[in-house]
């Protein structure tokens, strides 16, 4: 039994134990702490265990011979980063659950276990299956414990279910297509390693890669709220209970990008570079950055603003994909991690504020900074990270993406190519305005809530000492990774983009 399998099963076993009557909070916290420490240890020892295929801690149990399906686990650098993100956010999310039914703990553990399974498996069937497992509690929690009137939260839950269900079906179709395409004509295999090997040895012609890549883009993209399939995301996060909002926006949503980087890109390296796919992708991601960005500007409530900003930032991650250069893709990896941590931090604070204040209308709030200095500082960490302030984790990722995207297609050392600017360059230029937009709304929100004169009757205090831990942890991680991005980037040794310029 590999360590990775144990890591995946710990949350499930904990959830089962709680279901059967174990004390909810204790069990959940112990499980998430054990997982957090264990994954950190694995990440530290990862370089030593890495095999030739860049996978560590590999293990495999055959489930079916033909088509070949196996419960196969293995971590490469990217999986390791995602696993770190998962356990980190899980720990924070579970820690901040207070006085809630045990279903909160169970759901959080299930989402966490599903996400870990999806990130650490190397078999397409189980990758897909674990993601589905994580989705179900998400839907149920929004529908049952969502923070809105019953009709409204049911409507939100159904919208989310239908979008994500349809997205998953498209995704499944794309995966099966990929399996059929890359099984080399013989028996079908869902083994990602074998599929990658086949794709490397006999790649499809670029034109043939395009439709499959596009299908996978739509499938995975719906899960990551890629424009125009994004409209489920903002209401879902605004409605979802705090731990679910943290876990889904911070971790589970990243599954779509993880899939694109780990499945679509290696199998179809030129898929994103085929002009029509790239142009479509650029248009969509600009929709995320600019359209959703402008929508975010108009939000009146903190939770709506955060939810929309989370959708908006997905655009940068897709920019990394569209660029397809090694540095841009690595930047996306870093930004995925950073965004996950920062949005989880912001949602955690947001949930705490709702509980204490009863409203999140920015017009009604103000001056909280004077009562709750600690909270203000932590929120500032999250907000500034989200804007992309240097020194915090997001900055490094965004810079890498912009540089990588701008450098794409240039063999010369000059940044501006002689033949003029391409669509990608223009996109980068437009996307940079997104940074301005996010700075505007984040700073405006920060000022409206924490500065100014306190409103009467709306009083908020700093959290009790026991509740500091998750917030400080997340903020510290943002700072650490922001100052030393190599902590994470060093985990990724092998090139991520097959055949690309390093």
């Amino acid at each position, binding site marked *: 039994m590999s360590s990775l399998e144990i890591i995946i099963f710990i949350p499930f076993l904990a959830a089962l134990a709680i279901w059967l009557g174990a004390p909810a909070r204790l069990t959940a916290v112990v499980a998430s702490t054990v997982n957090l420490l264990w994954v950190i240890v694995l990440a530290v020892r990862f370089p030593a265990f890495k095999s030739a295929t860049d996978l560590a801690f590999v293990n495999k149990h*055959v489930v079916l011979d033909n088509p070949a399906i196996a419960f196969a686990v293995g971590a490469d650098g990217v999986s390791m980063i995602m696993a770190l993100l998962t356990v980190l956010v899980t720990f924070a999310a579970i820690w901040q659950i207070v006085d809630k039914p045990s279903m909160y703990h169970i759901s959080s553990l299930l989402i966490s276990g599903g996400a870990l399974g999806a990130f650490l498996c190397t078999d397409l069937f189980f990758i897909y299956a674990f993601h589905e*497992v994580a989705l179900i509690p998400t839907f149920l929690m929004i529908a049952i414990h969502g923070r809105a009137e019953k009709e409204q939260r049911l409507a939100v839950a159904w919208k989310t279910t239908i979008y994500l269900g349809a997205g998953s079906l498209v995704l499944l179709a794309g995966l099966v297509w990929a399996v*059929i395409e890359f099984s080399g004509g013989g028996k079908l295999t869902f083994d990602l390693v074998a599929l990658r090997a086949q794709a490397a040895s006999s790649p499809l012609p670029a034109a043939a890669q395009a439709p499959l890549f596009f299908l996978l883009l739509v499938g995975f993209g719906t899960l990551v709220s890629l424009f125009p399939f994004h409209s489920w995301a903002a209401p879902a996060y605004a409605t979802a209970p705090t731990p679910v909002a943290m876990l889904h926006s911070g971790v589970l949503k990243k599954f779509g990008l993880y899939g694109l980087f780990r499945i679509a890109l290696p199998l179809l390296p030129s898929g994103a570079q085929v002009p029509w796919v790239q142009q479509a992708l650029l248009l969509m991601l600009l929709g995320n950055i600019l359209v959703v960005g402008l929508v975010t500007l108009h939000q009146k409530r903190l939770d709506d603003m955060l939810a929309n900003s989370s959708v908006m930032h997905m655009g940068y991650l897709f920019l990394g994909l569209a660029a397809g250069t090694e540095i841009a893709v690595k930047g996306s990896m870093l930004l995925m991690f950073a965004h996950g941590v920062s949005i989880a931090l912001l949602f955690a604070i947001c949930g705490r504020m709702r509980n204490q204040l009863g409203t999140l209308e920015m017009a009604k709030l103000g001056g909280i900074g004077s009562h709750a200095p600690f909270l203000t500082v932590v929120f500032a960490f999250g907000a500034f990270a989200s804007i992309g302030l240097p020194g915090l984790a997001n900055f490094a990722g965004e810079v890498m993406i912009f540089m990588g995207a701008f450098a794409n297609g240039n063999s010369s050392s000059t940044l501006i190519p002689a033949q003029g600017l391409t669509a990608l360059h223009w996109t980068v230029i437009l996307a940079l305005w997104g940074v301005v937009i996010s700075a505007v709304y984040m700073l405006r929100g920060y000022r409206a809530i924490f500065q100014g004169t306190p409103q009467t009757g709306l009083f908020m205090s700093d959290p009790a000492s026991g509740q500091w831990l998750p917030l400080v942890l997340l903020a510290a991680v943002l700072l650490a990774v922001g100052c030393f991005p190599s902590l994470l980037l060093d985990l990724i040794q092998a090139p991520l983009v097959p055949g690309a310029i390093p």
Partner: protein
Amino acid sequence: MSVFNLEALLALLGLFVLLLEAFVPSVSSKALAGICMAGVAGVLVLLVTVAGGQDALPAFIGAYHQLDTLAIFYKAFALVITFLVLWLTLEAAPYLSKFTLDGKLGEMFSLPLFVCVGMMWMASAKDLVTVFVSLELVTVSFYVLVAYTRKSALALEAGVKYLILGALSTGVLVFGVAWVYGATGALSFEGITKAVQVGGVNKTALLFGVSFLLAGLGFKVAAVPFQMWVPDVYQGASTPTTVFLSVGSKAAGFAVLTRVIDALTVSGSMVRQEVITVLSIAGAVTVVVGSLPALFQTNVKRLLAYSSISHAGFLLLALAARDSVRVDLAPGGTVAFYLATYLPMTVLGFAALIQMRLNGRGEELDDFKGLAQKSPTLAFLITLAFASLAGLPLTAGFFGKMWVMLGLVDQQLWFALVCAIIGAAAGFYYYFRVILAMFTPEESTEPVRMGALARGVCVVLGCTIIVLGVYPKPLQMLLAKVPVAGKNATGH
């Protein structure tokens, strides 16, 4: 002890129980159920132990009876579902007996044994006469079983509907058999296989007969356009009988359909293309027609009825795509695999309905509200069953649907594939509605209790769903060996 004696053994047991019930009035339902269940379990054990080292069948029965893997599988299937139905009957006895005249369920225990005998014969049938005779044994027993709870007006209504449409399908079936016989001159599957391969057969007449034959069998498996009876009969009949119809009768129908389709679509067959086209269209339409009304159902039993139609559609598609080489399953194996996964989830779903009734709740969607608070175990098991029915990965239902769709891709039946995807997507919606209802909190906190036996069997069924969903290899290996006429000759 040879395998072909098992049916006789079971029939004798049925007779014994009938007599016991008639002449020893003091015998309790529990005792009757115990005897029957023990008998069925015993026969199942015998089947499993004897099946491996059987000799060739004696001539008097060998001409009508075969014992290939498929036959053994469907025999075992019939025994398992009969066992479960007997258990469900015992479980439901407290409220079912209110609807019978004398407050007893005597024949509800012996008749399933005769149904089982019929289904086991069907599994082994080698010619259409055997098919007809055993099919009618099953059907006539079901006429009685459906109408058995006579004090319930719905049950009688269901009984009459099932009777009329059942008799209609018998007529259609015999008419089809007549024309197939007229065109090919054969009543045995072997003879039909030869006739369609060799040629010299009037194709129009054969197709005419085949269409009636398939229509007659289509009724038994509830394929469109013969699905009208399903919702009413399923709703009206007592739940154990509904399970029996939904799983047992369907499986037996597909066992026969597999043989018929094998004979008709053997490589070089003159009607191969037509039969596959008809099957794929019928299957595709059945999936959609079953799924769409289910979207608006508020009665869970009726919802399960519609979903059962949809599953029949998937099974037909499995038959249509039966020559797929993508999965290590013999052509008839996909259907068998699907049915094997279909059994635990359907039985579990209906068993939950019985538990609801025992706790004084109904079968409407509203009755499921708050179940997660009152009986977390039951709610979890229902969630599992419904997730599996919807075809979520890591549950039994996923692989069945997956193999069907892979087969459709392989055979390039795109229209059918699109319909299958629509049906699967609709399934997510209506199954999820029930799950959502269960987890919705409700003020009243009347506890929902489950007996120890019920809990045990339900947990076993739930575990089966997970095991089949996570580790389907043993089942697949079992079914990969299904030998089918012309498998090796199947060309592409």
